[in-house]
């Protein structure tokens, strides 16, 4: 039961970020390889507001998310916007460059040692035999709220219809008066804020370290690719599946009662992408887009 709870926690973190990515890929058709660093930016800024400036936790979190949104917007204007209409592969290289810049700035400003947003000890509860902290319960709830909100927005509001129209055919949507350029910005900033949420959770639940950026990105992309790059629901589902497989891989005795070393846990997500891409290159839940 504890393994399932751990999978739910890790899956929620991955789903939070991968869900935003799926929307970005669906709308803009670009990969953002600086996503993990944007998550760390949100986490470190919250740590700075709370621990260095002494602001209350809630204000620090709101401030961290706001600043993460601003930085994501600047990233979009400098690193995505000048490139993505020329060729959709250019942002992959530019976001790699910006991930290096963020890594360097995080190292220079916050140093290499681990940082925890909360200095107090955590309080745990036992749910159906699994031990979970309050912060983890909040993350799981937050992810469910996010998924429900996206579902409602996409399927029951005019904004959602505009987003879906832009996903299906950006030029046709623009010709019908939908402000595709503004939607592109909103979706990208939203993915950055969601990544920031993930970074804040890491800073509260575990520790923030500058080396976390790329593993976070890869895990979110594992879910995105496995789910079918523009399929929001497939991505969310695969985020949880990958987390579950990771937990089962190291938490269950496999060969003659022996366990797979924990160091191999990160390989599980990578092997999952490799396997999915080899069996079904377009992703498990991919579907054909309308092109006219």
């Amino acid at each position: 039961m504890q393994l399932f709870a751990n999978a739910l926690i890790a899956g929620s973190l991955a789903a939070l970020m991968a869900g935003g990515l799926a929307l970005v890929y669906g709308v803009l058709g670009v990969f953002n390889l600086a996503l993990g660093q944007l998550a760390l930016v949100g986490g470190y800024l919250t740590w700075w507001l709370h621990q260095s400036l002494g602001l209350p936790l809630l204000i620090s979190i709101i401030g961290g998310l706001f600043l993460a949104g601003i930085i994501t917007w600047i990233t979009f204007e400098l690193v995505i916007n000048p490139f993505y209409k020329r060729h959709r592969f250019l942002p992959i290289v530019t976001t790699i460059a910006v991930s290096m810049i963020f890594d360097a700035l995080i190292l220079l400003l916050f140093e290499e040692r681990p940082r925890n947003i909360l200095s107090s000890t955590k309080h745990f509860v036992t749910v159906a035999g699994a031990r979970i902290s309050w912060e983890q319960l909040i993350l799981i709830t937050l992810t469910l709220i996010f998924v429900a909100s996206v579902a409602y927005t996409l399927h029951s509001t005019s904004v959602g219809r505009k987003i879906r129209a832009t996903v299906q055919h950006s030029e046709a949507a623009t010709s019908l008066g939908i402000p595709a350029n503004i939607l592109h910005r909103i979706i990208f900033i939203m993915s950055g804020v969601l990544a920031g949420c993930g970074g804040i959770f890491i800073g509260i639940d575990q520790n923030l370290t500058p080396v976390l950026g790329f593993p976070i990105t890869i895990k979110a992309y594992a879910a995105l690719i496995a789910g079918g790059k523009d399929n929001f629901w497939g991505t969310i589902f695969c985020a949880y599946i990958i987390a579950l497989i990771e937990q089962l891989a190291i938490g269950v005795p496999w060969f003659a009662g022996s366990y797979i070393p924990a160091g191999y846990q990160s390989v599980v997500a990578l092997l999952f992408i490799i396997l999915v891409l080899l069996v079904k290159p377009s992703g498990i839940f991919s579907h054909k887009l309308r092109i006219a």
Partner: protein
Amino acid sequence: MNFLLHIIAIIAIGLPQVLGYNVIFGKGKIFHFGPIGVSLMAAYATFLTITNGGSYLLGITLGAGCALLISLLFAWLSFRLEADALGILSIAVHLTFLTVVLNSTQVTRGALGIPRIPRLPFLSSLSSFATIATVIAILWLAILYMIDTGPFGRKLQALAEHEWHAKSLGVDREHTHIAAFLLGGIGAAISSILMPQYLLLLHPNDYTFPFLIILVMIVVAGKPGSILGVTLSAILLTLLKEGLRFLPLPTTMIGPIRLLLFGVILLLAVYVRRDSLFPQQRKI
């Protein structure tokens, strides 16, 4: 003098890999981000064999064979996947190799790396190492230049510009791209056989993701596909990288500043080459 020889050796050792990668990513516009994974496996295959009593010949043969096999694997993957999926998958394969090396401590010593790497007898001194590495780099450059200006280079360029049209003119994508990946693999094998001998150490930290970024940056900054441009870019950026050691800054700051500088250079290079890095397909 020793520092000059060191710079020459570092540039010459790295050049075969950079030029090999330039064939795949620069000229072929193939979204392959796994060359460091190829180097990692080639280096470990070579030096695990040698340090466990195997001969140099056997070690080098196994290392080169490993590099070629993994390159073929990447080539095969490139035929199955869309370009962006190949990019992500090749990073995934690289990181999988790295994780396996780091965790197989019984065989690879994990994060400790393999110390006391033996050098080939004729590579014992710094000057001989710099000379031999330079000769190898120049030979490799000349070979690639001839290949690049011949039919293979034209086929690869045609496929990069417009695959359908190239195919309709009889260009075989599979053969051409396999050859490109193999050239990249040979380049990676040469560099990964020389570098640990030069450092007398094989360490997994030398095969992490930032090294891929440096490789991409050298190719992008030097003009993708241009052998001479990429060679010049490799020389200048290596000089910059090594020159940063002399900045009067604490050692803990040198690494991040190098990362920051290279990130900015890569961004500027992509901005300057935004029309030629991944050109719009020709419309007829």
